[in-house]
């Protein structure tokens, strides 16, 4: 249980630094896993705060269509030099379904560049300040209105739309 107390401390410090009203929700389902939901306007400050606490490695960024908006999860990992104490904190922010937008974190963590582009490819989140949001996984001629991992795009509809623009 000692490890869990460490985990709670990480969340407490974050709540203190960001203001508890900005930390919407958090959970620690098991050792080495923390989930924290924060308000989008505090994203950059939170990433900066966590980087100072050794959560410097972005394992990846997941974009999820949750129906009434898009959730973006930053899976930030604290490495442990082989000592078994690594922790992955999934930082959750929510943005609107229409014109989804979040500030980029690539100025703080350059390793997040491709992950932000990938989220832009698949669910259409625009990362303000990102130097180049050109497609990273989708082909160059991909129709601009199709964000394939949004739930409204069924596989058949994507095929139909692609045949209209002459893609395959």
């Amino acid at each position: 249980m000692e490890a869990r107390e460490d985990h709670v401390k990480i969340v407490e410090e974050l709540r203190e630094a960001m203001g508890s009203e900005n930390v919407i929700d958090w959970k620690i389902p098991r050792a080495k896993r923390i989930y924290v939901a924060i308000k989008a306007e505090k994203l950059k400050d939170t990433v900066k705060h966590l980087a100072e606490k050794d959560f410097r490695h972005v394992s990846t960024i997941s974009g999820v269509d949750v129906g009434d908006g898009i959730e973006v999860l930053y899976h930030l990992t604290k490495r442990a030099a082989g000592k078994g104490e690594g922790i992955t904190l999934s930082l959750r922010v929510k943005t609107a379904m229409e014109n989804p937008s979040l500030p980029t974190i690539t100025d703080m963590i350059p390793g997040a560049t491709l992950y932000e582009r990938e989220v832009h490819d698949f669910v259409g989140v625009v990362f303000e300040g990102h130097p180049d949001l050109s497609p990273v996984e989708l082909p160059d001629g991909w129709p601009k209105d199709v964000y394939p991992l949004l739930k409204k795009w069924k596989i058949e509809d994507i095929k139909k739309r692609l045949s209209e623009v002459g893609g395959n």
Partner: protein
Amino acid sequence: MGETEEFIIPVGPQHPALKEPTNFTITVDGEYVVDAKARPGYNHRGVEKAMESRTYIQNLYLLERVCGICSICHMTNFCLTVEEAMGLEVPARANYIRTIMHEIERLHSHSLWLGVAAHEIGFDTLFYYIWRDREVIMDLTESISGNRVNKAMPTIGGVRRNISPELLRDIRKGLDIFEERIKYYKSLILKETTVLNRAIRVGVLTPHDAVALCAVGPTLRASGIKSDVRADDPYLVFDEVPFNVMTHDGCDVASRVIVRCDEMFESINVIRYCLDHMPDGPIRVKVPVIMRVPETETVCLWEAPRGELIHYLKSTGGTTPYRYKIRAPTLGNIPSVQRMLIGNYIADIPIVIAAIDPCFSCTDRMTFVDVNTEKNWVWDSEQLRRYSRKWYQQNSH
């Protein structure tokens, strides 16, 4: 000319390093690379979207086909992700067998890579020798699982095949032979100038850049950073098995070769430990074919041969995943390889790209652009490789 000129060259998607596609746009100034930009995605198959309309058992086999080299990694990590979401306890023996398969996969992957690296620098004799000896591992894989590539060993709740006492003896014997050969290759590589001339101080990635660019796996460890998911965030039986996280502080292609060789010795020891300590008992718990996963989310990290692999599952209680996210290690290493190429010769591009052991599940061609003359041209892998070997023949002393 006095003032230098830059030139842009596209490299890929027919790949300069492996038989898979990605494109690099390389800006050069004379023989030097001044900028490099990768454009992956040529083999994007929409696996994540496809998963949302398939059951968990169907997805198990789809995930195995994400990668032909580390099929066990994706498949087993998927099992861990789903088992955690369902609160399933897997029998101890199953976890030992999973660990054995996982490390055997690392042996085949690292030795495959070592052969490819030899080929990239024109040392085809070494390439053929290594791939001949890799067959020992491939034969073991086949006798354990029945297959060489897609092994279909793990399943949700355990593994599908057991390891018999006879097979146990064969594995030990095979490992002894393989270990001897890798020891020999490592000692050969360390004193062979054909290799050293092409690997030392080539494709440098400083520890600072490796961390900032979120490098993973042997690429990270060869820049002196001690980090390995197996040790940092142990899964399967890695909290019991003693092993070392191998690092090297040369930060170059040579370091990446050494780290991978050392990791093979560690993997061999991990497998031996598992063979010695494997408990008896069942190898799987039964799960329904059409299973419902409770509303939850799980994140599982895994140390694949190329580095950290992460899977994220969001379930809303249905029989298919609501969202499943996969990030394979090569995507994590692309920002690093872009940095490594800068400052190197054009002739070093193939070996530097090969040194992250890229797996695009794909093809690459390269575009080269000269900043001065705005002339540009396209080379395929074979042209670039030929250029690279010829250049080194003429310019080495």
